[in-house]
């Protein structure tokens, strides 16, 4: 039986791939869009039987991130898996299918005064894609990233088995936390089909306090003063060029009082606004996007190492940031900037990982840089995907 027919027997939406659907240029032979978890499991089982290399696809906001797959026989598209399975508002918990867009999830939760405390830097992205790439924004200062908010996960394994970990309660230490393992695993361990999140109440009031900083030293001072103050910000960011921005959330009287404290702390240029400053919650401009790990004391060094005009930087007090390099930058220059970034950050236990790069740059740079526990990662990968059929080549060390 042809693979198309074999898949069509188990899934209501299967068709040949189109050239425009290539994953970083690697064209899929087939696209299957399962409409239920059971159907997704069948698709994965058939893919295993036929030795098809599988790449999951959500809303394609980050499908061009990472390195190209070595093979892509089958794209598993999650757009039909878009249900909000459960919103237990009294328990501050929601379970969503992988293909549900984050903005639709947010709308549904907001109806009952709740939210998933994750920013969505790329509009349209899905629950599954957000978890698979570990994506987060400014709120990570207080709430962390998907790994900190996922409390239950259902995946379909490479062999088509459905596996679940965690559950629908926040406090739970029964068994290994596969949720954290799958966050940021780029589709290389299994197909994420359902995710249960812990939620937070939508705050009654919010305000941003911003100030201008003239050089890396001033940025460092401003960040340190907020960090060690008792104002408990929801987010603390540096945004190039030269802004330190703080998000305060809480009850109206509390937010007003804390904004007052911060204005005193941050000096003459401090401003309080009820809308986000430019560049808030989005990736910095540029066509090469680099994710950096940089603890607070590394910030001035990060800024010094990226002082070229047209290089954009955003950085979060959780110790993570992004650097955007302009489209005109020659591949060799990108490689040089990346190299110097890595050298600078290494002294502070920081890292720089390329998330997206245009085609001409892709071949010139090492996307991941040093990966300390790579051997162990390969062994875990070999257990989950012994035939290396799941997004092969998309991840660290060619995993």
């Amino acid at each position: 039986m042809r693979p198309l027919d074999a898949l069509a027997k188990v899934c209501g939406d299967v068709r040949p791939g189109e050239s425009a659907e290539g994953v970083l240029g690697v064209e899929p032979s087939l696209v299957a869009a399962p409409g239920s978890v059971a159907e997704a499991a069948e698709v994965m089982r058939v893919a295993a039987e036929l030795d098809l290399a599988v790449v999951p696809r959500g809303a394609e906001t980050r499908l061009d991130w990472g390195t190209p797959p070595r093979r892509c026989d089958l794209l598993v598209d999650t757009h039909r898996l878009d249900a909000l399975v459960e919103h237990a508002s009294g328990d501050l918990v929601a379970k969503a299918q992988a293909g549900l867009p984050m903005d639709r999830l947010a709308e549904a939760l907001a109806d009952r005064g709740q939210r998933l405390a994750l920013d969505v830097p790329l509009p349209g992205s899905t629950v599954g894609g957000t978890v698979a790439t570990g994506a987060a924004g400014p709120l990570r200062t207080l709430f962390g990233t998907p790994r900190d908010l996922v409390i239950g996960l259902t995946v379909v394994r490479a062999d088509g088995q459905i596996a679940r970990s965690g559950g629908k309660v926040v406090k739970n230490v029964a068994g290994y936390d596969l949720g954290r393992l799958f966050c940021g695993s780029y589709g290389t361990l299994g197909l994420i089909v359902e995710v249960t999140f812990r939620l937070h109440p939508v705050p009654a009031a919010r305000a941003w306090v911003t100030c201008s900083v003239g050089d890396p030293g001033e940025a460092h001072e401003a960040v340190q003063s907020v960090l060690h103050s008792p104002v408990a910000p929801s987010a603390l960011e540096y945004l190039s060029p030269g802004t330190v921005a703080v998000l305060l959330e809480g009850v109206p009287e509390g937010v007003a009082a804390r904004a007052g404290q911060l204005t005193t702390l941050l000096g003459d240029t401090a401003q309080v606004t009820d809308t986000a400053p430019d560049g808030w919650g989005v990736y910095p401009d540029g066509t090469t996007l680099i994710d950096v790990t940089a603890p607070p004391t590394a910030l001035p060094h990060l800024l010094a190492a990226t002082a070229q005009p047209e290089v954009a930087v955003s950085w979060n007090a959780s110790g993570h940031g992004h650097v955007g390099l302009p489209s005109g930058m020659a591949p060799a220059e990108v490689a040089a900037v990346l190299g110097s970034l890595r050298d600078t950050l290494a002294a502070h236990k920081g890292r720089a990982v390329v998330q997206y790069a245009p085609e001409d740059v892709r071949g010139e740079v090492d996307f991941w840089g040093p990966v300390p526990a790579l051997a162990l990662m390969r062994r875990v990968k070999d257990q989950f995907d012994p035939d290396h059929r799941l997004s092969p080549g998309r991840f660290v060390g060619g995993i």
Partner: protein
Amino acid sequence: MEAELQALASRLGALLGSDQVITDPVRLRTYDCDGLTNHRATPGVVVLPDSAEQVAAIVRACADAGVPYVARGSGTGLSGGALPRADGVLIVTSRMRRILEIDVANQRAVVEPGVINLDVTRAARPHGYYFAPDPSSQQICSVGGNVAENSGGAHCLKYGFTAHHVLACEVVTPDGELVELSAGDPGYDLLGVFVGAEGTLGVTTKITVRLTRVPETVQTLLAAFASIEAGGTAVSAIIGAGVVPAAIEMMDALSIEAAEAAVRCGYPPGAGAVLIVELDGPEAEVAAQFAEVERLCRDAGAFEIRIAADDAERALIWTGRKSAFAAVGRISPAYLVQDGVIPRTALPQVLARIDALSAESGVRVANVFHAGDGNLHPLVLFDDAEPGAAERAEDVSGAILDLCIEHGGSITGEHGVGVDKARYMPRMFSEADLDTMQMVRCGFDPAGLCNPGKVFPTPRLCGEVPGVRKGPHPFAGKADIF
């Protein structure tokens, strides 16, 4: 001692100092259990390494000899996670108690695994910081043990568990390699799965933890209700109002009686339930929310509310709660501590069912719980001198776990699975779920020597490769079909 273990003991003696290897049977018995005392095994050998290199050497020696090993911090765990093996080596981290760095500017500390939880806070406090995970045993439990168990505590409702406060672990893997697992590094979040793996994926030798800014203010109240139901209504109202308290704890009449007998905490007489609510954070936030919490408690029928005016009064309010487990010893010769979780909204139904279970079986159950996150700690009381009483208590305790599972909860919120609950895992997870978790274990520890027999009821054979074996590639030479 078997010849194999004896040979390993002398090899370990050569690798470490002679005072770091214990083989004397009398001294070995000191280590025969952790906080769960009904499971005991005298370890074959105990080693007391004082460096990561020594831990790595020990693990390599065990791997070479094919001998199992278990890591142990302070031995305060409540699920037998550090239960030793009679045929194995117990690696005790009590000589690895250095706080290596307090890095205020980056809000982190680097500690060895044997460091006591509260000592991290003591070291950070002068700088205005603390280590947020606060298990009840925090005065004696180790950070290494917290990592293994992903420990929580009363305040994890707002601040999260150990997993949220660990930035990196240096780990000796089961093949004896020393690797750093860091949340900031590229690749899989192996740190995320290592924390909470109950010591089955390796031994941590150095931990980088996040330090949390001491809140500007803390406000604590104690509210007394006629019944558990009324207290539960208050909890739902507080959470429903969008308040995220630092902690919400509840005790029922029986546990109040026990606490009263033990520490004279002076809780309001006649209370069917008391609720402790603590808010912390910026002053203006806390002031507004605290007033609301007080109002919601009164609306739910609180007949007395006490507000702590200072730290001493706060400590007094907490005394009863913190002593509850031990206090139960005053009203019962023996007891089991259960640790189940339910969705918070199921609290009234589940407590009614626990009452019914207790009435049917004649086994008394005192309820203490982290009400904010649905984590129940029923204390199942029995008289160990009475024949069959222990078994009846076990049955009730197990039935409570079944109730938790039935309501979509968990068999453990913070004590871990260990040896105690491995048999309950199949009630909560399918065979495929457990098999998948064990793939991680096979990746880390294919020989199954690192803390074997914990967490999973049956080990997975790591040689087994899942999936269907393949024939020729279906697209080979056929790419033009489409």
